[in-house]
């Protein structure tokens, strides 16, 4: 797994045993519990999960956006040789917007409604670089043109409400990339958009990533988007990574029953419709009262195949099934591979 010792060719991003816990009246909510991951420069990692899985909190922790007064943050986040969790707030602030940038689901709430979009980008430039207002504005216009805003000379003085949702998301992307950050975190960037606009925005992110060599973490619930753009996938459930693999491996040879459940839940446009979908039964667990054993056990169809009821009593570790394929499951490797083959064959073999 991850070596904690110093290494010359350390990956660009290393997250080590990240924990984010919120004390509440009802008890401690461990939104993120022991998340570790590594990411090479220029690659795209998708973090997939349902609501409450901890995927957004993980992103916010990397971005340094988790309120330290309200939450207990533990572990290490190494970005390009710098550790972020122990770093003083003002230094994190300096990195944010220059080294790391983020785009959100709802661009309307991330853009200031009272300022012209051009001025907001100028501010982002001048917060990190000593550039004259005139040059900054020229740079802003150039970037807006680059992200595909039509009639830029006029639009640069528009207010956010004067733009459509897709245009606003383009402005957000322009603002996020204006200081050439090394890492871009995109949290559900297309969830609020129509499919045709979503396709435009995903293509734009990929194109700019290619041009600038940006490393991207994409947070999403949509397995179609992951298949489209990600190099690597981490599947999260109840605050933990339950499976992690290169994209092609995750879709062709998933092993964790939760991943299988997700793949069988989504209706497929490219296949004949099934008579019935195979949903995951039940509901996600309450974060205050997590199961003692495997967090997925109450919804898992296969836990009874593990001897001694291990799934009820012991938390499984995230272990390598193949060198770059990590799975958090008590089932024997061969057993879960056999289950996956059966489930996938059933999904693919649906009669017309």
């Amino acid at each position: 797994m991850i070596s904690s010792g110093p290494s010359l060719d350390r990956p660009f991003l290393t997250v080590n045993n990240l924990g984010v816990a919120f004390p509440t009246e009802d008890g401690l909510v461990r939104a993120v519990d022991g998340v570790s991951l590594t990411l090479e420069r220029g690659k795209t990692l998708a973090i997939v999960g349902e609501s409450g899985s901890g995927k957004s909190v993980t992103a916010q922790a990397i971005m340094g956006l988790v309120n330290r007064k309200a939450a207990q943050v533990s572990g290490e986040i190494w970005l390009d040789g710098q550790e972020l969790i122990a770093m003083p707030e003002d230094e994190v602030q300096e990195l944010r917007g220059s080294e790391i940038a983020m785009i959100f689901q709802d661009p309307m709430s991330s853009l200031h409604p009272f300022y012209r979009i051009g001025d907001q980008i100028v501010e982002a430039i001048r917060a990190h670089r000593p550039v004259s207002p005139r040059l900054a504005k020229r740079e802003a216009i150039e970037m807006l043109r680059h992200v595909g805003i039509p009639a830029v000379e006029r639009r640069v003085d528009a207010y956010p409400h004067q733009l459509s949702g897709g245009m606003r998301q383009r402005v957000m992307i322009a603002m996020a990339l204006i200081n050439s950050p090394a890492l871009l975190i995109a949290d559900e960037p297309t969830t609020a958009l129509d499919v045709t606009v979503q396709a435009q925005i995903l293509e734009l992110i990929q194109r700019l990533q290619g041009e600038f060599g940006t490393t991207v973490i994409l947070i999403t619930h949509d397995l179609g988007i992951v298949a489209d753009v990600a190099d690597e996938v981490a599947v999260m459930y109840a605050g933990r990574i339950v499976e992690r693999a290169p994209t092609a491996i995750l879709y062709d040879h998933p092993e964790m029953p939760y991943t299988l459940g997700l793949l069988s839940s989504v209706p497929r446009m490219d296949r004949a419709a099934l008579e019935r979908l195979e949903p995951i039964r039940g509901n996600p667990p309450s974060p205050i009262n997590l199961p003692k054993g495997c967090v997925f056990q109450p919804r898992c169809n296969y836990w009874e195949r593990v001897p001694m009821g291990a799934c009820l009593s012991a938390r499984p570790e995230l272990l390598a099934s193949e060198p770059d394929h990590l799975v958090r499951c008590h089932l024997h490797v061969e057993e879960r591979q056999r289950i996956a083959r059966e489930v996938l064959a059933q999904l693919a073999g649906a009669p017309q």
Partner: protein
Amino acid sequence: MTVETSEILNVTNLRTYFPVKSRGIIPRTIGQVKAVDGIDLKLASSETLGLVGESGSGKTTAARTILLLVRPTEGRIEIDGQDVTGFSTKALLPVRRKAQMIFQDPYNALNPRHTVGSIIAAPFRVQGVTPPGGVKNAVLDLMERVGLNPEHYNRYPNEFSGGQRQRIGIARAVALRPKLIVCDEPVSALDVSIQAQILNLLRDLQQEFGIAYLFVAHDLAVVKQISHRVAVMYLGRIMETASREVIYSAPLHPYTHSLLSAVPIPDPKRQRHRSRIVLQGDLPSPIDPPSGCVFRTRCFQAQEKCAIEVPPLVEIAPGHKVACHFPIEAKDLPARVEVEDIELQEEAPAAGAPATGPGLQTPHA
């Protein structure tokens, strides 16, 4: 199946326009938003018609107009053989017994101060119906039927998850055994694992009670899962309608092709080697829709004729209707099409540039 099929819904030439008022002390009507602009729909019992389109296509307004939650500007709505178009709110009461609605947001559709039992019993109260065995027993049966624990009869909506709240909404909608349920984006606010549960439940209820669904959604994969027939809307009009199989495997309208091509498929190998039609820009304003075919400003097939003549919705094969001057089969699509939005080009500084139609770029791979 021995369920007798009969026509439950017949909508002809439905139009819903909203006035646009000027600002000032005495507002004048200065225009109209043609949210729904002349659509025909038919629906039989035990049948699901999927109504798809992007935001602003008018699909939700159409759904609401059909249940007369919004009054139509023009057209005729028949529910179970009865013309209900001009009915007063009072006269509609017995119609509501036959036609119900399920909403997108299960958080806003339930009264937070009422218990689940009271919410599901509301249709019986409002309609003055006492089912055999009493209201309470009927409600408990309904809760069981939709997968809720009947012991939770006295709980409030905030004690339930999103998926469970949607089940409450469904129990309320099926309480009086309606013949038609209009579902407006019923699963789009739910997580995928829960979404599949609700889709299965809707299908089970349809098979048990013979309910017809008008299923409004933007998610084409969900619509494929649940629908028998599909109608594709754009700017208030139906562009193409056909059986599910035809819409998804042999569509002819360029807009249908564009929509299908934009939905990412959860299979990396297939997804990365698909032909793509990338539409630029957004839907044009419905206040000032393009002349002729409303889709022409984003269409890769558009020619001069499209700006002049509105293409009628023509039946090309039995049950397959297309509103397009230049329909195209999937096999004739290029590997990649990029469609520039001509509206956007017209905004560019050189206003005097000759209008050359939509810029079709086909970089050959």
